[in-house]
């Protein structure tokens, strides 16, 4: 190793007074000792150097043998390398044939009893014109969808069926018959299907709640927070707020439905940026097991879009909740901020993604007429059609899509250290913002990097203070 050495691609962060490295693209997290830190500091501050140069340069504080050992370790995990090594080539592997379908999202209706201003399905940024789709999925299409899912799920696999809308519970009758049919068919084939649904909570009547609990259906309620927040944008078509309709029903649901954790999903907008207030209200006052937050998907310039310093305010609050999550985890307790637990899990496993999500890989959306879409958000869009439940997946289109959307073809991502976890961000967000699914979510880059850094620091601290907690994420 007489060549000059230089840092390769990593993101360094500190936690509990220790220095950690997040290596890119492997997504490995290592903790560096004093000698390794000194080597990295010197290469970063002084510039490329040889091993001998490093040994003599650090001789005041470290014996040469320690410097050499640190260089060898760092070199072998590719944290450092020859000065002229260049970036790691990005492998573009063709997606495997016959990818099993793990999750199918069934849009059982395209109708909704609310008229939320920011809705991606009906709002200003909608993909599918109203009236082009059947308003309700019929029995036959639902059954064909189940047959399709089981056929595509692979041998002996477990798969997941999510009911979605519109407002999912407007087609409650279909949910009942489809779930029963899927159970029966899965049992006959020796497979297992998990069920979940997303609802706005307005139609959670006692018989619905009873059915959800009895059938162990996972429930996510779209709800934005306290009354003044919820009633601002989550309104009925006549403009009336939905809080008073939703919350008493949700309380009943939480009381009766204990077989699966019930989560809340909050859409953040410029008008609704009190993340911590919403979190407290939904977990402490109402009793949700977990709460996930997502900024509204919108084209630039809408009056509810979160832009500029509003993004900073969102980040500050995410960070506050993330550190609170850490303190809970250190004590071995559950904290319901699901954004951070999902990130920590991916960091712990060392995910290095070729694609930002499972859309088109192991997840597909089904529109009310039985056409397959990239995901539930694209279901019904002719441009993003991937076949149908009767004709099967259009493999050619699927493979072409996955090839074209590989992170290797997003040059903006190539110099970003957060790409193993982000891989360019949501296709739907990209389509809404830039008119193409191929664009990375450039408007969120800074935000994603800052958030990933926070999660890495929380992860590092947890790995030091209560490594046993990470066993929760082993499987």
């Amino acid at each position, binding site marked *: 190793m007489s060549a000059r050495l230089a840092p390769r691609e990593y993101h360094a962060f500190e936690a509990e007074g220790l220095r*950690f*490295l997040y*290596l890119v693209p*492997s*997504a*490995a*997290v*290592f*903790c*560096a*000792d004093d*000698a*390794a830190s000194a080597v990295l500091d010197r290469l970063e501050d002084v510039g490329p150097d040889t091993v001998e140069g490093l040994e003599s340069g650090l001789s005041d504080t470290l014996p040469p043998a*320690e410097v050499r*050992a*640190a260089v060898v*370790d*760092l070199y*072998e*995990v590719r*944290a450092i390398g020859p000065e002229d090594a260049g970036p790691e080539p990005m492998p573009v592997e063709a997606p495997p044939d016959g990818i099993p379908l793990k999750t199918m999202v069934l849009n059982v209706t395209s109708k909704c009893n609310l008229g939320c201003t920011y809705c991606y399905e009906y709002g200003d940024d909608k993909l599918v014109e109203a009236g082009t789709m059947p308003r309700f999925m019929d029995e036959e299409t639902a059954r064909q969808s189940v047959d399709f899912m089981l056929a595509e799920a692979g041998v002996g696999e477990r798969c997941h069926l999510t009911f979605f809308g519109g407002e999912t519970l407007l087609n409650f009758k279909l949910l009942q018959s489809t779930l029963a049919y899927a159970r029966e068919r899965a049992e006959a084939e020796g497979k297992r299907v998990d069920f979940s649904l997303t609802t706005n909570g307005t139609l959670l009547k006692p018989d619905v709640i009873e059915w959800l609990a009895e059938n162990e259906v996972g429930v996510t309620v779209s709800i934005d927070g306290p009354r003044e927040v919820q009633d601002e944008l989550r309104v009925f078509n006549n403009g009336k707020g939905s809080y008073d309709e939703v919350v008493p029903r949700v309380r009943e649901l939480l009381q009766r439905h204990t077989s699966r954790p019930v989560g809340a999903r909050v859409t953040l907008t410029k008008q609704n940026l009190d993340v911590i207030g919403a979190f407290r209200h939904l977990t402490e006052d109402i009793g949700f097991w977990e709460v996930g937050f997502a900024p509204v998907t919108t084209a630039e310039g809408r009056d509810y879009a979160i832009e500029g310093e509003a993004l900073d305010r969102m980040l500050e609050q995410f960070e506050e909740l993330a550190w609170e999550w850490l303190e809970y985890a250190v004590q071995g307790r559950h904290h319901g901020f699901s954004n951070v637990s999902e990130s920590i899990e991916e*960091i*712990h*496993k*060392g995910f*290095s993604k070729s694609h930002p999500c499972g859309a088109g890989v192991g997840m597909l959306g089904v529109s009310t007429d039985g056409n397959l879409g990239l995901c539930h958000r694209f279901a019904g869009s002719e441009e993003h059609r991937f076949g149908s439940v009767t004709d099967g997946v259009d493999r050619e289109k699927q493979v072409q899509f996955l090839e074209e959307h590989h992170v290797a073809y997003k040059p903006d991502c190539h110099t970003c250290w957060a790409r193993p976890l982000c891989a360019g961000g949501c296709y739907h967000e990209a389509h809404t913002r830039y008119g193409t699914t191929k664009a990375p979510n450039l408007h969120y880059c800074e935000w994603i990097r800052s958030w990933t850094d926070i999660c890495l620091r929380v*992860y*590092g601290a947890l*790995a030091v203070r209560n490594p046993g907690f990470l066993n929760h994420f082993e499987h």
Partner: protein
Amino acid sequence: MRRIKAVNQKAARVERYVEGERRSAAAASEGEHPDGTGAASAEDELDVVGLESSGPDGPQIPFGCTLIFSPGWETDSGGGTAGLCQPVERDLFDCHLGCFWPAQVPDQLNNAGDWTSKCAAAQKDWRKLDLVFP
């Protein structure tokens, strides 16, 4: 690795890979590779699972009898002497499960799936093991 410590699962995999490379390199430089063809690649080592204690790409610690000379009566399957091939009632299980040398026991896969169901601890319950008539 002494100067950096693996923290997440991916780092542990990277570390195992690097350790494997180092062993291969060491074996190559000393000409010690058993098949005389030089060092094994990391991929080759992944195949050696029968000897491993910590997963397919961990350090190679021999467990149980030797592969070449049979049988290794000197130590038990844990490397000590407490579980040598005595007493006979314990051997019954050791020789058909933990050892390459197959003891003749009923076919638990097809015909006698519950042959051992009454025998929780062989040394105590071996009398409960019954004959099996196909």
